[in-house]
């Protein structure tokens, strides 16, 4: 069943099983940025959709809440096979990581008292902290040309860390100010070409 009757039929109509398997393979073997390229290769090369549709989906996946890869998988599944395709993509993209993390969890609860495992986990945690620091630095660098955004960013970090401001309120207040700031800037730019 297509997503809607007026949508152009995709050139290739994959089976629901193959939709699930494609995303199962990608989600259980690759990490981070590499996944977007893998998905693009699969869906565009196999003719489920064209490049423009894929890029549109990628943008939507990044704007909306939720993991980008999971959102992108759902988009591709839905464009290829409608709602059942989206569900197949969701299951394919989420079940293998869940099984892998459950195996890791079972091992964790069995062996985390062992001093070597404990030392290893502490070391890994320190490494994961380093990755998060790098991510924060990189994302902050992207905002460097706008001092208002840097102030907003710093204020958010302070009120969340020190005053435990709830996430919803953070998004409404600081997200709201950020969106207003962007809106006013877009309007200024439109007024002075």
């Amino acid at each position: 069943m297509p997503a809607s009757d007026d949508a152009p039929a995709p050139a290739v109509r994959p089976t629901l099983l193959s939709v699930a398997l494609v995303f199962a393979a990608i989600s259980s073997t690759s990490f981070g940025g590499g996944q977007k390229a893998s998905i693009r290769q699969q869906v565009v090369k196999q003719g489920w959709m064209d490049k423009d549709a894929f890029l549109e989906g990628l943008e939507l996946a990044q704007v909306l809440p939720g993991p980008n890869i999971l959102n992108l998988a759902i988009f591709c599944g839905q464009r290829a096979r409608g709602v059942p395709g989206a569900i197949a993509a969701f299951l394919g993209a989420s079940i293998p990581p869940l099984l892998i993390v459950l195996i890791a969890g079972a091992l964790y609860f069995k062996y985390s008292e062992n001093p070597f495992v404990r030392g290893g986990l502490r070391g890994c945690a320190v490494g994961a902290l380093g990755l998060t620091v790098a991510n924060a630095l990189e994302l902050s660098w992207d905002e460097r040309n706008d001092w208002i955004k840097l102030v907003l960013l710093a204020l958010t970090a302070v009120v969340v860390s020190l005053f435990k401001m709830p996430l919803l309120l953070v998004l409404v207040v600081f997200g709201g100010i950020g969106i207003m700031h962007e809106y006013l800037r877009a309007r200024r730019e439109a007024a002075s070409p």
Partner: protein
Amino acid sequence: MHTALHLLWTFGQLSVLGFGGGKGIIPQMHRDAVENYRWVTSAQFTQFYTIGKLVPGPTTIFAALIGYAAMPKTPLIGATVATVGMFVPSSAIMMAADVAWDRFANSPWRPILARGLAPAIVGLVWSSVLTIARGTPAGILPYAVTAVVALLTLRTKLSAPVLIVASGVVGIIALR
């Protein structure tokens, strides 16, 4: 049963608020899972987050481990409920949005929304750094490893799992 509903409600809210790929939800998740419900300790929270970064798939899959720990008698149910809470609401929004997308695609609001939310998300990521740090060992060596990993991430193409495993080896030797 009670715990299952709490898991579903807690992660369901985080799912809907998970803008920026879910990068900003860590501080709130810590507040819910560690401080309010006491499902896990701060050290466990950080280690589960680490496992989430180490395995393929979205980092926030580590919600499953919090669910696992929250329901010790039926850990698989806890893990499944937490995962459903974490992933189903945002996925449902994605599915619904694709239907409405045609109107949103050319809307001038789309880049305004994405760019406008960014500072708050980045601030939340800095707060996540402090949240995760609460569960890591203190000392000159751990701080040095954190700094080196951050530097290598920014300056080289080394992948996240490689850097985490290398840090783990340092930990086996020096952080027992």
